[in-house]
């Protein structure tokens, strides 16, 4: 076999393998989405065909809208995710700046202390976290979730951001000091703008696990007013398990925001992973 032919065969095999796995990866999502727009009869008769004029139905979505408070769940998820990311980034950047900029006694030790949480999952401490939230009256508040996710996100944020802050030029900061800028102004006006790409990476890494978490919403904030989208759809589907239209529509509604976020941030996410930010 000559070389050109074998390389073309290789290319075909490569595309076949990738296409096969892409199909496996997307198939469940596809099946859920198309069937959420069908009548109950069509869901069972022809599960793999696209909704046609005869089989098209929005009855599932109507049930979901009437029975579940998905808009509220969505809003809760949004508040928790954005709030946690804001605190993680702000507190993480401040601590990273202190650790990378100043030499003081215990610097190394404090860095190690903060890094502990990268490998130890915060879930191990759940029993005492719940006790703490009960004592402080934060059970069934979104703030409890924000606190937990901030604590969970800080170790990796401090680790990544201090790596990047070490690369900010000393001359720039010293020029600021000679001009009489306070240390706070140097941090806010000189350093933060320069580490924006790293902040974006940290944000994207933390966003998905927070949005998708079921454990802490279930334990710390299971009340109707504070359900996140993940918990809300889990409970809803559990209650409507025999109403296939409603279940499929609820699943589709839960998939949608994740897909939108992914389309918006996938370049950032992929760049973050492939730049070796996770070590």
């Amino acid at each position, binding site marked *: 076999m000559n070389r050109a032919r074998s390389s073309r065969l290789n290319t075909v095999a*490569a*595309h076949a*393998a*990738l296409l096969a*796995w*892409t199909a496996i*990866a*997307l198939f*469940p*999502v596809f099946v*859920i989405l198309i069937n959420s727009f069908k009548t109950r009869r069509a869901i069972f008769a022809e*599960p793999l065909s696209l909704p046609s004029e005869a089989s098209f139905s929005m009855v599932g979505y109507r049930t979901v809208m009437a029975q579940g408070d998905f808009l509220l769940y969505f809003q809760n998820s949004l508040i928790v995710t954005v709030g946690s990311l804001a605190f993680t980034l702000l*507190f993480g950047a*401040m*601590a990273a700046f*202190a*650790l990378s900029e*100043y030499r*003081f006694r215990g610097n190394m030790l*404090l860095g190690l*202390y*903060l890094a502990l*949480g990268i*490998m*130890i999952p*915060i*879930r*191990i*401490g*759940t*029993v*005492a*976290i719940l*006790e*703490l939230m009960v004592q402080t009256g934060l059970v069934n508040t979104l703030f409890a979730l924000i*606190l*937990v996710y901030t*604590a969970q996100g*800080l170790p990796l944020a*401090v680790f990544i951001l201090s790596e990047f802050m070490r690369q900010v030029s000393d001359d720039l900061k010293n020029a600021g000091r000679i001009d009489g800028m*306070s240390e706070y102004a140097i941090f806010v006006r000189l350093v933060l703008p320069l580490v924006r790409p790293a902040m974006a990476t940290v944000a994207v890494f933390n966003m998905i696990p927070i*949005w*998708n978490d*079921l*454990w802490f919403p279930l*334990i710390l904030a299971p009340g109707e007013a504070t359900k996140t989208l993940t918990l809300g*759809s*889990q409970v809803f589907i559990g209650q409507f398990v025999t109403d296939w239209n409603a*279940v*499929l529509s609820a*699943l589709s509604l*839960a998939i949608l925001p*994740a*897909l939108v*976020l*992914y389309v918006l941030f*996938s370049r950032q996410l992929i760049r973050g992973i*492939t730049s*070796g930010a*996770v070590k």
Partner: protein
Amino acid sequence: MAVRPRYHIAVFLAPAVLVYTAVMIWPLFNTLRLSLYTQGAAGHVFAGLRNFQTLFGDPHWADAFWNALANNVWFFVIHMAVQNPIGIGLAAILSHPRLRFATFYRSAIFIPTILSFVIVGFAWKLILSPIWGIAPSMLDAVGLKSLYAPWLGKEDYALTTLALISVWQFVGIPMMLIYAALLAIPEGVLEAGEIDGITGWAAFWRIKLPLVLPSIGIISILTFVGNFNAFDLIYAAQGALAGPDFSTDILGTFLYRTFFGFQLQLGDPHMGAAIATAMFAIILTGVCLYLFLIQTRLRRYQF
């Protein structure tokens, strides 16, 4: 130069250290401490190691614990044996320099990873369900209908099926990390191999794979930590009872049931804390083994 007061260092550090200490480290130690107490009439009563005696000594508790641990180990084994090879394979194909549509494949294959366990668990539950019939009719189409079984409902298959669903979801992570590591190999190294006649498969096995071993190590420890505190997928697909007959019970669901109670059994925070302590010990052992035994032996190449 006079020493300027350096309060700003404390100001920069305080919020992060406070939140991290109060919500993560303190509860972690408090959980370990609570495992040494039991519920008395007037609050916590010190009990020494009695909770652990119950956990490992009482046949009822010990059976449940070892069952959960064994299931968890199997869950991890499937991930290591299926997820990582598929991820490495996909990454190797994707990293081919002249491959077209690589960005499309990469983005599409990563989509399951961004979905929540709730979506993934229910979606697969529906697809594999004998009532809907998608899985049996698809197997029928290729003449393999006899292979079909309601996998999630059978004790023998349920755990493996769930592990494979989890693999399906997370294969994007090893793929991305290995892909990044493969792209970081300098062209010169591969060219030097080519001059020595090492191309194609040989180049993959003898040059690329050894160079990405550190990444495989990181993926393994991430998978280990993730698997040993997993909960959501099992809970979403099988409920807190991790049925059928506890055959899919892992440490996370066991902790949840013990802590919160289920059906007739009351929740017990102190036994929950004892299980959490055991999980902590397992994860800590795994991480230490990785850091001190594996990571120090993996050679990192500097280019």
